C-alpha cells in the first residue's frame, strides 16, 4: 500500500470517527470536577490507615498492589523478550569493544564532556536512589527512581569510553538486581498468605506518618520495585549497546534466506 492509499484510508476513517470523537468530548465530565469517588476515599483513608503521605504510592503498592505485581511481571516479561530478541544469535557473548563503522572517524571526548558527565551522573545516581528511598513519603517511588538511576548509566557511557562503561556497569549484577526485585515483590505478596492473611496484606509495623520508613510492607515493595526497575532498564541499555557491535561479529543467520 503506498502513502497516498494510506492517507485516503486515514481520511475515510477520520470522517467516520470524528463525529463520534466530538460527541465523546462533549459528553465527558466537566474538567476539574472528577466523578469518581475512589480517589477521594483513598485521600481520606490512606493517611490514617497506613501512616503514609504519598497517596500515589499507597494506590500502587498497597490498595491496588496486586495490579502493580502484574505490571511488574509485565515489565519483567517485556525485558526478557527484548533481551532475547537483541541477543539473537550472539547468545550471552559480550564484548568490551564498542562497535564502529570502518572508516568513520572517532573524535575523542572533550574534557568538558567527561567532567560534566561524571558530575551529573553522580548527582543523578544519588537523586535516583533518593527518589526510591523516599517513595512512600514524597513524590517519587520505585518506578521513577529506578528509571533515574538507569539514566545515570547512560551518562556514564557518554562520559567514559565503552570499555570503562562496561567495567562500571556489570551485566550479571543488573540481571541479578532485576530478578531479586521481582522475586521480592512476589514474596511480599505471597508470604502473608502463609500467615493466614490476604495476599500483600500490610502485616509489617506501619511506622509514623512522614517518616522515611512509613507504610509497612509498602516500603519493602517500593524497594523491590526500585531494584527491579534499575535492573530492567540497565539490562536493556546494556543489550542495546551490545547491538552496536560491528556486524561481522554477529552474522545474519542463514535460515532466513532459505
Amino acid at each position, binding site marked *: 500500500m503506498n*502513502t497516498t492509499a494510506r492517507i485516503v484510508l486515514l481520511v475515510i476513517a477520520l470522517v467516520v470517527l470524528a463525529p463520534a470523537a466530538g460527541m465523546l468530548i462533549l459528553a465527558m465530565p466537566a474538567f*476539574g470536577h472528577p466523578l469518581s469517588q475512589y*480517589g477521594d476515599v483513598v*485521600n481520606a483513608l490512606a493517611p490514617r490507615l497506613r501512616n503514609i503521605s504519598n497517596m*500515589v504510592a499507597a494506590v500502587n503498592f498497597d490498595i*491496588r498492589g496486586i495490579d502493580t505485581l502484574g505490571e511488574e511481571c509485565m515489565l519483567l516479561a*517485556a525485558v526478557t523478550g527484548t533481551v532475547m530478541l537483541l541477543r539473537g544469535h550472539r547468545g550471552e557473548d559480550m564484548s568490551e569493544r564498542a562497535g564502529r563503522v570502518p572508516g568513520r572517524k572517532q573524535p575523542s571526548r572533550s574534557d568538558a564532556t567527561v567532567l560534566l558527565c561524571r558530575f551529573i551522573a553522580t548527582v543523578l545516581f544519588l537523586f535516583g536512589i533518593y527518589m526510591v528511598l523516599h517513595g512512600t513519603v*514524597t513524590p517519587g517511588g520505585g518506578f521513577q527512581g529506578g528509571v533515574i538511576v538507569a539514566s545515570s548509566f547512560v551518562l556514564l557511557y557518554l562520559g567514559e569510553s565503552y570499555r570503562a562503561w562496561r567495567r562500571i556497569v556489570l551485566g550479571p549484577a543488573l540481571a541479578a538486581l532485576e530478578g531479586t526485585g521481582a522475586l521480592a515483590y512476589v514474596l511480599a505478596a505471597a508470604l502473608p498468605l502463609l500467615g493466614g492473611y490476604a495476599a500483600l496484606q500490610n502485616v509489617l509495623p506501619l511506622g509514623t506518618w*512522614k517518616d522515611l520508613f512509613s507504610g509497612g510492607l509498602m516500603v519493602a515493595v517500593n524497594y523491590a520495585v526500585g531494584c527491579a526497575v534499575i535492573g530492567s532498564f540497565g539490562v536493556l541499555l546494556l543489550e542495546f549497546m551490545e547491538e552496536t557491535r560491528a556486524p561481522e561479529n554477529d552474522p545474519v543467520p542463514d535460515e532466513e534466506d532459505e
Partner: protein
Amino acid sequence: MSILAWCVAAWLFGIGVYGIVTSRHYVHLIGCLAVCQSATYVLLLGIGFRWHAGPPIFYDHPPGTPAVDPVVQALVLTDIVVSAAMTALLLAIALQVHKRRGTLDPQHLRPFRQEK
C-alpha cells in the same frame, strides 16, 4: 476551557496516528506510537484533575485538604512503564528487522511475501 483537555488528548492521538500512517521508517513509527500513548496520559490526568486542589501527597499540607485523584495518577505511572517496556521491545524488533532485511521502510518490507 472545560473541553480543552479532552481536545488536546484527541489531537495528540490524531497526530500520532497520522505519523504512523505516513511513516517511512520504523523508528519514527515507534516514536509516533509513543505520541499516541501520551494522549492517554493527558486524558487520565484530565479525568482526575480538580480545581483548587493540591497534589495527593500529604506532606506539606495535612490530610483532608482537597487533593487531585491519586488513582488516575497511579494509572498514568503504569501507563508510562508499559509504554517504556513496549518501546524497548519494538525497537529490539526493529533492530532485528534491519539486520535481516537491511531496511526499516514499511513500504519495502513485505512480511508475508516468500523470500526468494
